[in-house]
């Protein structure tokens, strides 16, 4: 598997990367390369230029300040998984990152690349949708902030414009009473999510005051399981109420459920509620 020829540029800053993108039509940003390099090797992509953003310092790291978690786009999955701060303030993200692929993939792959690539079987888009994250982009027309809910538009398509770079992701740290978890039915070969469910639960006095649940892997882009959220909100948090609410998920999957040789559409529909239930149960179990 040999990639077609391309020119390689290494950007030292976000603005340099943006300039290079504009100068080389069709150029691709290279982050961790875990999705882009396979595409090149399979000759499914043949950009004339590849712009490496891997050395841009500003794009790296996790900071928590004033109740907001800010994660640079070039932060690797391994860094997310190992972050003590994240485990404390947003366990669902650390947990999902820890379950991505294998150690080699986690050491190179980045949150920015994962999100920009928008593979429906990826884990992080689902998590960011449930977290109502904000995505920071920088492009020729300046900077803008996008909501995770509107960012993912379909199979491998996002709201990023042609010359825009995703720079960071902001997530509200869990306030008191909030907890979260990710449940994943991993493909035995690729490890991508066949079904991935992220749940963020806020409880007070044993009752659910708010629930945010997103389902991915089985749909072209992550969807909020609003029926589940509604069914749970205001309820006593018990095994029964969770199971009952989880069963509502079929209402939210729409008519574009994905299927493949490993897991058919029908099967995924049949077991989706089980994975919702598991995410909810774990999130509730984590509540302090």
């Amino acid at each position, binding site marked *: 598997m040999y990639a077609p020829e391309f020119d390689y540029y290494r950007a030292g800053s976000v603005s340099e990367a943006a300039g290079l993108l504009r100068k080389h039509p069709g150029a691709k940003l290279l982050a961790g390369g875990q999705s882009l390099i396979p595409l090149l090797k399979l000759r499914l992509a043949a950009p004339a230029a590849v712009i490496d953003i891997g050395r841009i310092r500003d794009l790296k790291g996790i900071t928590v300040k004033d109740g907001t978690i800010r994660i640079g786009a070039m932060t690797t999955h391994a860094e997310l998984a190992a972050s003590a701060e994240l485990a404390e303030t947003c366990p669902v993200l650390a947990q999902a990152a820890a379950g991505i692929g*294998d150690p080699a993939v986690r050491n190179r792959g980045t949150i920015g690349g994962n999100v920009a690539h928008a593979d429906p079987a990826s884990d992080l888009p689902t998590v960011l949708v449930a977290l109502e994250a904000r995505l920071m982009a920088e492009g020729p027309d300046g900077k803008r902030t996008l909501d995770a809910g509107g960012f993912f538009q379909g199979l491998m398509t996002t709201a990023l414009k042609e010359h825009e770079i995703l720079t960071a992701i902001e997530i509200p740290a869990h306030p008191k009473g909030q907890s979260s978890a990710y449940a994943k039915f991993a493909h*035995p070969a690729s490890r991508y999510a066949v079904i991935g469910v992220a749940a963020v639960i806020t409880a007070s006095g044993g009752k659910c005051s708010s629930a945010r649940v997103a389902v991915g892997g089985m749909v072209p882009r992550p969807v909020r399981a609003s029926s589940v959220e509604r069914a749970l909100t205001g309820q006593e948090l018990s095994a029964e109420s969770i199971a009952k609410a989880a069963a509502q998920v079929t209402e939210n999957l729409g008519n574009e459920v994905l299927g493949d040789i*490993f*897991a058919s559409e029908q099967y995924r529909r*049949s077991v989706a509620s089980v994975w919702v239930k598991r995410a909810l149960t774990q999130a509730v179990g984590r509540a302090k």
Partner: protein
Amino acid sequence: MSTRVFGSGIRRREDPRLITGAATYTDDYTLPGMVHMVLLRSPHAHARIKRIDISRAKAAPGVVAAFTGSDIEGALNPMPCAWLVPNSNLKVAPYPCIAKDVVRYVGDIVAAVVAETPYQAADALDLITVDYQPLPAVIDPEKAKQPGAPQIHSGVENNVAFHWTVTGGDVDGAFKKADVIIKERIVQQRLIPNAMEPRSTLAHWSGASGELTLWNTTQNPHIARFLCSVVTGVPEDKLRVIATEVGGGFGSKIPAYPADFITVFCAKKLNRPVKWTESRRENFQGTTHGRDHVQDVELAATKDGKVLGVKATSYSGMGAYLSTAAPGIPTILHGLMLSGPYDIAAIKEDVYGIYSNGTPVEAYRGAGRPEATFILERMIDKLAAKLRMDPVDVRMKNFIPKFENGHTVPTGLSYDSGDYAGALKKLVEHVGYKDLRRQQAEDRKKGRYLGVGVSTYVEICGLGPSQVAGAVGFQGGLWESAIVRFHPTGKVNVFIGANPHGQGEETTFAQIVADEVGVDVNDVKIVHGDTQTTPMGWGTYGSRTTAVGGAALVMATRKIKEKAKVIAAHLLEAAVEDMDYKDGKFFVKGSPDKAKTIQDIALMANVAWNMPAGVEAGLEASSFYDPPNFTYPFGAHLAVVELDPETGQIDVRRYVAVDDCGPQINPVIVEGQVHGGVVQGIGQALWEGAVYDENGQLLTGSMLDYALPRADRLPDMEVLSTVTPSPHHPIGVKGIGEAGTIASTAAVYNAVIDALSPFGVETIRMPVTPERAFNAIQEAKAGRR
């Protein structure tokens, strides 16, 4: 007192270079002037090539040459099949190195491009245009035999490559007498071996001398040389094959491949070294697959669980062409083992080898024997379920009683030694079988679904007596050779014809020499994998390297010892009959303090200043060992799996293996072989399987879709053993390379069925994916309603 090096679990000396990336594989070699070859492979499973145009590729930057099927005609002979199973009406269809008129599987080679860099060659490949007329394709071997199925080779009616039968005992009588008859359709799906190192070839042709050096990923360099000579016409004496480092094979690096010979063809044409290395994608399509059997099996038994007979009809997929050893695998290595460790009086199997539009099928770890074991172990469990007996009891009831020297089974084989009940007893005691069952019943009441599965096996390995090889149509011998050479300093080189490629014989063979003549194990280096330096041998497969090559080594080392004794007697001025030996020292009986060490003798033999009359200089010996019989390792395995009833997901919770490979040279290496083997068998039960669509497209064509076992889905393994020496082997060893794979698929599958049984599920297709288990539960529920 010295501790014996034989039997000690010293570290594998192979590992430092392997795990630090210091090993040099075929693809690591670069020669001056070397060019790179890439292959254009058919995207169709079955199509006529109407036109092929390589002119644009030839003109592309960096391209040195490009060739199609017409270019090689006359220069490369068709690929030979080397296992011509007799009395089977075998039809070897023409297998050209490059397809010219018709392509028969996705991956069939249609053109080769050679360029200065692999990138340029890959670019040029995109410039070749082929005009295909697609033809209907068929993959499933049973369907391929149906009238009206697409005809894959002209003259091969119903795609039947061969029809082979084995019978022993009165089968009709057994089935007439039976109280119960159990029937089952068994599908042992097609698997893709996926050795860590992809296949690679580097051909260096010297036009001036007419000599060819071929670096090649092969388990058997001497066979590779032989077959290369047959196909390319380069005489064997001028052909050197180097395969000193091979990154796993599992059977897929036994056969010769067209790509190897196309590389040679290009090197000769261009008079430049040519290298070809397959990509992982190519490996999935173009390197041989394993298994692929559809079987209808019947078992006859009495109502108290005594098995009277087994009969089976097997449709065995061969893929588009007959790979080197393919016909022997579902026949000789499978059908003859159909009574396994059991005393079953009547056996019959009809095996149809079927051409299909899949990748050619070859040996895959276990090769034929896992399939035989699976049939038996499945049927025994079904019988137990039907009679409401415990599966362990049914096995105990049917085992061949313990024997130490020969037991003939209905198919005609004579097993060497066995204690099948002993292995199962050890297993059952180790796991606390009764308690395990009790625990399982309690868990079930709480809604936890555990399944316990047992599998017992005997395998045929240590292939084998060459006379038998000839009688069963194998186009070669099956002996092995070793040369033991003592250097003046007392250090030893051993040259062997077999070619370990991960199994650890560089370590265990040094242990054998150390044990036989008392040299330090670190003073012995094993040389293999280069036909120019090693003696002829038939290769590493079929768990035969230690069983056969190890025996050759023992015999050669014993010759050394005899000669050393004669020299020592001379130096000590004693009669040879009065000499004694212990731990590397030769001395006159009763005077161990005045001894000559093996190192003293090596020095004297090499300088030859003072040799006994009539004794040649040097301390070197060779042996060509042709075994009198096969060896028959055996064992009993147990798996505990857990079913998640909500999703159908199955996890292996516990795995216990009891294997008997005779005396163990190195128990750590034995354990490693069992681990790897067991994992590959679990892979077949739960995760692995080649899936093609109705057009013959391989859907599991990469590691994104083809699920190889991963460490984090596996439990720790408990590996135990019993020791029953082979009576005919000089040090009693039997072979352990394939045992794990042979036993584990059935153990896990039986455990899966056990876990699913409360839902009324009796059978399920492999691999048992969550969806399959989930659907089976739903269907069984619906059926019962």
